[in-house]
């Protein structure tokens, strides 16, 4: 796979999918690029039709719009293969359409008809399709799809399926416990999952700066030890490229990826919400960045279509929407007796997993060690933050004297953002307590030491626009891509882990103790 540069956040580039050298930088054919337009436009038209239906009182319950966010739904879903699993949320109708769900399913769902995929049992986009399109229905509680899709990914890996799961969450939804637990579970079990955090700036009436303490939700990924990337959510080509890179990485065993797509919710939370709390200027700012005209411009400028082609596509869309809407409006409501049916599955489904590997392979040699492999014992390493947190007077006083004599190495100077000479407080924090600045051994150590975890050797905060790159700029995916779980099926645990787990003293395979139970330290029963 050729490595390519992809624009990410902070000007740092990322590993991406293979790209041919012609203008179709996304790796898509012309038809595929036109499809991106088709689905975005279809998305917009379906929602416009539903808005009209709502105003005609034909929609049961609430109606949610994804106006302005179509690029995210369509762009991300387009990066998937047919066997992959998706769990769209209410503002990802575009993803459903991209996966092949006809508009009539969406209309009938919102209109509570018997012909809807759930036969009227649930509404909006709460429907799924396990066997065909591999769609998992959401529930109204936010964040709960994340652990579920993590489980789908983990289970699929166990079955030998090389699939990726994808789900979406908003800036507001990323506050829930389910988001946290689900992402953590995905990270710990290396689920092949791509999570799209759609930051549309508003969670109902709560702006992002009142929802969470970080400006960039991709920063959250750090907390789980997974990759986080920011993308311009209104540029469908960007969205596609970054998502494709993430999907490929996840599929190859690189673990979960969090993509933060920045966008704006151009309507209220739902039809009933006029969103007067949104500053008008903000709406104007993002209107200029509407994904649909933006992509249309690209298609025109790159000669991928002409006016006739566009009209043809638009006509196709208009006809489809009209036909499906009529179908929905003429559909009956479900019979009342349906309410009592379907609580339990009593033979109505045959549950069979799809095995893509030899079940015989599952037999494993015994002797899994009863003691975990822990390569570092929680050794204390103080990270230097780009913006140092406030220093208490006590700490400052303690180290100020030494810091003033500090001779800063070139390396250290270069490591400082903006090339500014660090103040006493800033540098003070770099000196481990007890080691003097005149200590040569310490200075040598500082020069040689890296602060990042087992990897490519550059500090986290490094950002040197003035320095010409001597080699490829460091990757955003800071963890080395060592492909864990390449051959997970026949080796005991301690041999399966990637290279990073080999580091540390005394962890040679075969040395692991073989006790069958864990003894508690003297006198302490522990948690039973």
């Amino acid at each position, binding site marked *: 796979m050729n490595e390519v540069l992809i624009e990410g956040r902070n000007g740092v580039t990322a590993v991406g999918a293979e790209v041919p050298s012609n203008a179709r930088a996304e790796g898509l054919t012309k038809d595929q690029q036109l499809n991106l337009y088709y689905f975005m436009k279809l998305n917009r038209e379906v929602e416009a039709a539903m808005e009209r239906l709502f105003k005609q009182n034909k929609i049961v319950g609430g109606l949610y719009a994804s106006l302005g966010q179509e690029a995210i739904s369509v762009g991300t879903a387009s990066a998937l293969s047919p066997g992959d699993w998706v769990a769209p949320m209410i503002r990802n109708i575009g993803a459903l359409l991209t996966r092949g769900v006809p508009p009539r399913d969406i209309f009938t769902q919102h209109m509570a008809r018997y012909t809807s995929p759930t036969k009227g049992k649930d509404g909006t986009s709460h*429907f799924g399709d396990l066997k065909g399109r591999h769609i998992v229905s959401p529930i109204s509680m936010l964040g709960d799809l994340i652990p579920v899709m993590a489980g789908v990914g983990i289970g699929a890996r166990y079955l030998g399926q090389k699939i990726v799961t994808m789900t979406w969450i908003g800036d507001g939804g990323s506050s829930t416990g389910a988001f946290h637990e689900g992402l953590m579970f995905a990270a710990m079990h290396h689920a092949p999952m791509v999570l799209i955090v759609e930051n549309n700036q508003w969670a109902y009436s709560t702006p992002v700066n009142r929802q969470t303490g970080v400006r960039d939700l991709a920063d959250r990924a750090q907390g789980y030890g997974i990759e986080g990337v920011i993308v311009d959510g209104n540029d469908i080509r960007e969205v596609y490229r970054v998502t494709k890179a993430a999907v490929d990485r996840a599929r190859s065993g690189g673990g979960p990826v969090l993509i933060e797509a920045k966008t704006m919710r151009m309507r209220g939370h739902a039809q009933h919400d006029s969103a007067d709390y949104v500053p008008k200027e903000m709406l104007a700012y993002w209107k200029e960045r509407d994904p649909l005209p933006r992509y249309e411009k690209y298609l025109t400028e790159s000669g991928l279509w002409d006016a006739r082609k566009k009209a043809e596509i638009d006509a196709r869309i208009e006809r489809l929407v009209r036909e499906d809407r009529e179908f929905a409006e003429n559909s009956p409501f479900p019979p009342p007796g349906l309410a009592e049916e379907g609580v339990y599955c009593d033979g109505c489904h045959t549950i069979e997993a799809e095995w893509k590997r030899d079940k015989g392979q599952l037999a494993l040699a015994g002797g899994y060690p009863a003691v975990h492999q822990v390569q570092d014992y929680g050794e204390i390493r103080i990270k230097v933050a780009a913006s140092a947190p406030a220093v208490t007077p006590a700490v400052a006083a303690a180290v100020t004297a030494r810091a003033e004599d500090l001779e800063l190495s070139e390396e250290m100077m270069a490591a400082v953002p903006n090339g500014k000479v660090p103040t006493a407080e800033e540098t003070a924090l770099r000196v481990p307590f007890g080691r003097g600045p005149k200590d040569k051994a310490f200075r040598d150590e500082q020069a040689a030491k890296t602060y990042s975890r087992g990897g490519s050797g550059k500090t986290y905060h490094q950002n040197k626009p003035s320095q010409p790159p001597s080699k490829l700029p460091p990757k955003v995916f800071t963890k080395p891509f060592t492909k864990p779980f390449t051959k997970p099926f026949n080796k005991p645990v301690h041999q399966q882990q990637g290279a990073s787990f080999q580091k540390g003293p005394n962890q040679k395979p075969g040395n692991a103790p073989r006790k069958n139970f864990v003894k508690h330290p003297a006198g302490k029963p522990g948690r039973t």
Partner: protein
Amino acid sequence: MAQVTMLEAIRQAMFEEMERDPAVVAVGEDIGVYGGAFKVTEGLLAKFGPERVMDAPIAETGIVGAACGMSFLGLRPVVEMQFIDFIACCFNQVTNFVAKSHYLWGAPVPMVIRGPSGGGVHGGPFHSANPEMYFVHTPGLKVVYPSTAYDAKGLLKSAIRDNNPVLFFEHKYLYRRIKEELPAEDYTVPIGKAIVRREGSDLTILTYAALTHTVLEAADELAKEGIEAEVVDLRTLLPLDRETILTSVKKTNRLLVVHEDTRTGGIAGEIAAIVCEEAFDDLDAPIARVTALDTPVPYSPPLEERFLPQRSDVVAAARKLAKY
């Protein structure tokens, strides 16, 4: 075969099911290397490997959600709650995702959530819960609560093979205290069937879990006074075996329900309503119940003893009912 504790019976069920069907996997906190807080899953990791026996972080929502996702693929995950009390942490996943998926969009969730529950072991208010009624109240789930080693093994197998989500409560007081000889061959116990543990003619005592043994002792004591109690062990709380309950009530015409759950909202109320609806003309006395107090489970032994129904409580209530 040797005598086997209920805990061992559960482990046997897990072993045998995981051997029989590679789609069965286990997820939980500390179940792999440690073998589970109560050692129910001891040996599973060695036999089946870390792909099938997954240690999880302390994230019940994450665990149950992931198991739900695995179920969508057709796997059959068995989730362990370290103490069933912690199921409260993932109440949303259980009641809104797992329970409703089949009804709403036709996606069956063939998973099992199992865990140690019940009091009498000085576990205090957060390690002694009997939360079964929250889930009996949730359509879409099945709730199972065995009282013997034989039933535990058979019901867990049925639960794993069931296409619906099953909550499998294991009374921790019984884990090592009861032993039984189990048949060597594969057997299941059907979900949704109660069982008559002791035949009688004067009154029916309905119960489940650890109190089954208390009630049987009470019945022996009552027999000395000439009161023959019929003891019925519910085994499954949802769906309730109405047939067995009503047959017994029609036979003895007097009903006493005994459970360790709190009084208000406990299944005794539901059973009383059902019996009044379906067998009013067969009642010779009001329906009585012996339950725990309407309080959280207290910690100090004399307090917990007061909280839990004791044999003397059952005997007194049965006596009063028989003489009504």
